[in-house]
């Protein structure tokens, strides 16, 4: 058992920290949130060059051959200043390609993204799905040598900009069945792909995507047709793990931002941080932020665990835990800032918003607690 970072990991974290400090303070995100893209292609390219985008992917496709631990560390640090580039969609959609794609598909769809030349998105949510990655109505009918896709995907992160979109579709099985699901790589320029950009509360962008009889070749199916059920579950966990890591960065920031404000803000002629009730509240925030650091490590380590029970138990625990901690820390962060905390000009509200997005993405607390309680581990040793 060992939670110390390796030399490579330490170097990586230091580089990312340096970047957020010097090149991507929250101010950058503030400027970008009003733009159509919401992020910066030049920065994306740089992230590709620095090897961050490919960090968890095989060297053969231009990655660094490391694991999700390193990806999680990057996301955690980027969370500290709300860096808006779409790494989470990349890591999730990219993992679909890395896990199920052929070498050719990886070179074609993944390599340009890892280099920072293109970006990806992962379209799995539908109107009825309520966090369940197996609840898919979008249909894939065999058509000629390929397939015809029909359906509507919602809340596709980076769907407004992604060059390639990994989409789930059903060729068989009932609405919520894990069987009969497949993953396709869709080019946004294919006929029938209708992308409606939407704004998300955190100042980022996503898309509602309608697939109106989109014809795709067999070369755009990832892995075997109808076999993507387990992979979809794994991608969901990977995404959830990434949100936990980013939340950890957020909570640390909000904790210390609040603590600093308490030292600085004077009322009744003393720093308000000298009031015991506020001190204890800040300690409660500290406890939650520390626990979140811990569950972020849990998420990093277990996100790619091959044993589904082991993976789902850890990820659901981490996600449910961080949702509770995140709600508390960001709410109290605002409360302890008082009036200034609810102004758009202060950063703490931006963290609050992003935390809600992270809490909701890839499963809320009700979803993860229910899943946790349905795993074999929950009923083991009775």
């Amino acid at each position, binding site marked *: 058992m060992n939670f110390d970072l390796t030399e490579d990991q330490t170097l990586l974290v230091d580089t990312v920290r340096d970047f957020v400090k010097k090149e991507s303070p929250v101010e950058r995100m503030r400027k970008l949130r009003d733009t159509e893209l919401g992020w910066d292609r030049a920065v994306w390219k740089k992230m590709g060059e620095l090897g961050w985008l490919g960090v968890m992917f095989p060297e053969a496709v231009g990655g660094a051959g490391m694991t999700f631990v390193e990806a999680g560390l990057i996301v955690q640090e980027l969370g500290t200043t709300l860096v808006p580039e779409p790494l989470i969609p990349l890591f999730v959609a990219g993992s679909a390609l890395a896990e199920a794609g052929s070498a050719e598909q990886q070179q074609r769809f993944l390599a340009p993204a890892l280099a920072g030349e293109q970006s990806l998105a992962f379209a799995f949510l539908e109107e009825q799905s309520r*966090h369940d990655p197996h609840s898919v109505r979008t249909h894939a009918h065999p058509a000629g040598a390929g397939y015809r896709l029909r359906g509507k995907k919602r809340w596709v992160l980076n769907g407004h900009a992604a060059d390639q979109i990994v989409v789930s579709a059903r060729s068989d099985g009932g609405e*919520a069945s894990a069987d009969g699901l497949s993953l396709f790589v869709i080019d946004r320029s294919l006929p029938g792909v209708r992308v409606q950009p939407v704004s998300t*509360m955190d*100042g980022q962008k996503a898309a509602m995507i309608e697939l109106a009889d989109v014809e795709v070749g067999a070369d755009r199916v990832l892995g075997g047709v109808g076999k993507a059920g387990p992979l979809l579950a794994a991608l969901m966990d990977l995404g959830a793990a990434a949100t936990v890591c980013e939340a950890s960065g957020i909570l640390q920031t909000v904790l210390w931002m609040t603590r600093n404000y308490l030292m600085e803000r004077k009322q009744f002629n003393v720093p308000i941080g000298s009031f015991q009730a506020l001190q204890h509240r800040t300690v409660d925030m500290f406890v939650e932020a520390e626990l979140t650091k811990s569950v972020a490590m849990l998420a990093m380590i277990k996100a790619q665990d091959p044993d589904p029970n082991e993976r789902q138990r850890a990820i659901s625990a981490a996600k449910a835990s961080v949702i509770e901690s995140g709600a508390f820390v960001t709410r109290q962060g605002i409360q302890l800032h008082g009036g200034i905390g*609810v102004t*758009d000009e202060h950063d703490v509200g931006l963290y*609050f918003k992003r935390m*809600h997005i992270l809490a909701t993405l890839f499963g809320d607390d009700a979803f993860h607690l229910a899943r946790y309680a349905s795993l074999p581990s929950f009923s083991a040793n009775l």
Partner: protein
Amino acid sequence: MDLSFSPEELAFRDEVRSWIKSALPPHLAAKAEMDAEFTHAEVMEWHKILAGKGWAAPHWPKEVGGAGWDAARRFLFSEELELAGTPRLSPFGLAMVGPLMIQFGNDAQKKRYLPKILSGEEVWCQGYSEPNAGSDLASLALRAEDRGDHFILNGQKTWTTYAQYADWIFVLARTNAEAKKKQEGISFILCDMKSPGVTAKPFLTTGGTPAFCETWFENVRVPKENLVGELNQGWTYAKALLGHERTLVAGIGISARALLRAKRIARDTLAGGRPLLDDPVIRTRIATLEVRLDALRMANYRALAGAKLGHAPGPESSILKLRGTEIQQGCMDLLMFLMGDNSLSWFNEPGVVPPREQWVAPGFNYLRAATIYAGSNEIQKNIIAKMILGLP
């Protein structure tokens, strides 16, 4: 002990309910149905409709345009308004400077200002907080220098809600910097927003709409007749008003309406093919909050029944602000939770999420202020600890 309303009170409620139904213009009713935020113009439109009926300030004495209702009728009236989701009138004239003037103002002031507050012809805003005087309000720094027949105001106010639309502002200003206690050198002054030297600049809240301003005063000349009550007694007047605010912000009707909306969303949202409202875990979440609201409603009834019989509001009313704002926030949390992925949405065009869900996220953000404004909940707890529990 009696929890029921009298037949007359129930008839009154029915009258109010049906009047609202007929009087609320369709475009406002449509926004109410989806709990959208109303614009200032819409609020004033509704204000004038209420004024036309004589119901803009039912809590005022009859002789200055009030309705002469007792507390129960006032409660029923405001609950009906809240349940119908009508625009909330700006409280600064009707609920704050108006009552203060009625209690402490002179006849000339009452004659000059009250009718236009009532009719909505003049809009007011409040100048209390300053950048360095929030919880410690008495340390405020806006100076009002005595120049014989007028004051000269210099300084800055913040959180001046809708100052950009206001005709008048009432401020707490320092008129005696030498007073032994800082509370003793403060006066209550009315200032025309059109006076040279007054600048109001709106800023955004996290809710995404510009409800608040910063307001600067640079050598603003204010005639002495705009002083309310006695010089240096402003703090006493302002404090007398704070009690009223507590019951204003409980928002029982608002939360009740939010819970209704929550259930409607839960009924209309399917998960695994079944309405969320059928899921026992979700039913329990909703019921937990609704039960808390039931308890608070009873506390509100008690405060009300006391008031009806002429009692001073007892300690039970002090919890209304604390718990009421927590429940309001809890309702927003619940709504966002029920919306699931749709709670990601932010100011998108109609159709992205169902109408009922469209304004939840701004409210979720905006209502973080509920536990901060009108005396933060921490300040409320300090007050209860000292005044009610007698702790040192």
